[in-house]
């Protein structure tokens, strides 16, 4: 890998993110949310594996069924829907990032962003309609 390098800001130009929230526009907020959602999903991955891990939480099939049953209680259903929103956002914005990397939609990245968010809202609505009436409450 190459040596590190330092970028010297132009004189008189103060650019620190914490001081320039007002300059954040769609793309910057998309980036912030992408990072926050990514870290949340990584944390959830470990939670998911630990809950499902046979040697930490349960010793056999009866305990597995009890734990999975408890995870369908209302608080966890709400958490599941929130998780779905977070994952959906990360996936759709990730698609936008890859499109931009490939050179598509650079001039219209804001419209592409909101178009994909519209797709996300539709997916979220369809999934909720399919799943919630069948929830084991």
């Amino acid at each position: 890998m190459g040596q590190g390098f330092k970028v010297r800001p132009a004189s008189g130009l103060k650019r620190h993110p914490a001081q320039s929230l007002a300059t954040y526009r769609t793309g910057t907020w998309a980036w912030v949310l992408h990072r926050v959602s990514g870290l949340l999903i990584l944390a959830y991955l470990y939670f998911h594996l630990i809950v499902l891990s046979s040697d930490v939480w349960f010793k056999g099939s009866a305990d597995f069924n009890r734990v999975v049953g408890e995870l369908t209680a209302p608080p966890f259903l709400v958490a599941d829907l929130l998780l779905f929103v977070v994952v959906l956002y990360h996936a759709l914005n990730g698609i936008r990032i890859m499109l931009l990397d490939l050179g598509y939609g650079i001039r219209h990245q804001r419209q592409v962003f909101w178009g994909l968010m519209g797709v996300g809202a539709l997916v979220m609505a369809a999934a909720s309609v399919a799943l919630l009436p069948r929830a084991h409450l």
Partner: protein
Amino acid sequence: MWPWLLQRVSAALLLFFLMAHLWIEHFMHLGARITYRSVLERLLHGFYVFVDAGLLAVVVFHGLNGLRTVLVENTNDPAAVRAVTTTVWVVGVATFVFGMDVLSPFLFGHPWFRL
């Protein structure tokens, strides 16, 4: 370049694996309860083992490679970048083994690691 490129490749793979995972667990048999027995029977088929193990490997790579990006982006020191990369790889391999241990009772009839 490799971390950047592989993050895109793993993202594309995740679109497949994650949709397969959510479809299989929640939509394929709408309303059916997930039980130890249903998971056991599902994992008799090689395709579902491929989806579960593949998703595990790709999601661990993508998640920890993303974490690595967050950790090194304000660093100019190549030694620090190498240290973060090594640490993340060790954690990633351990996480993959841990995840396979979660699958192991269903795949092998008994868990890899248990007292």
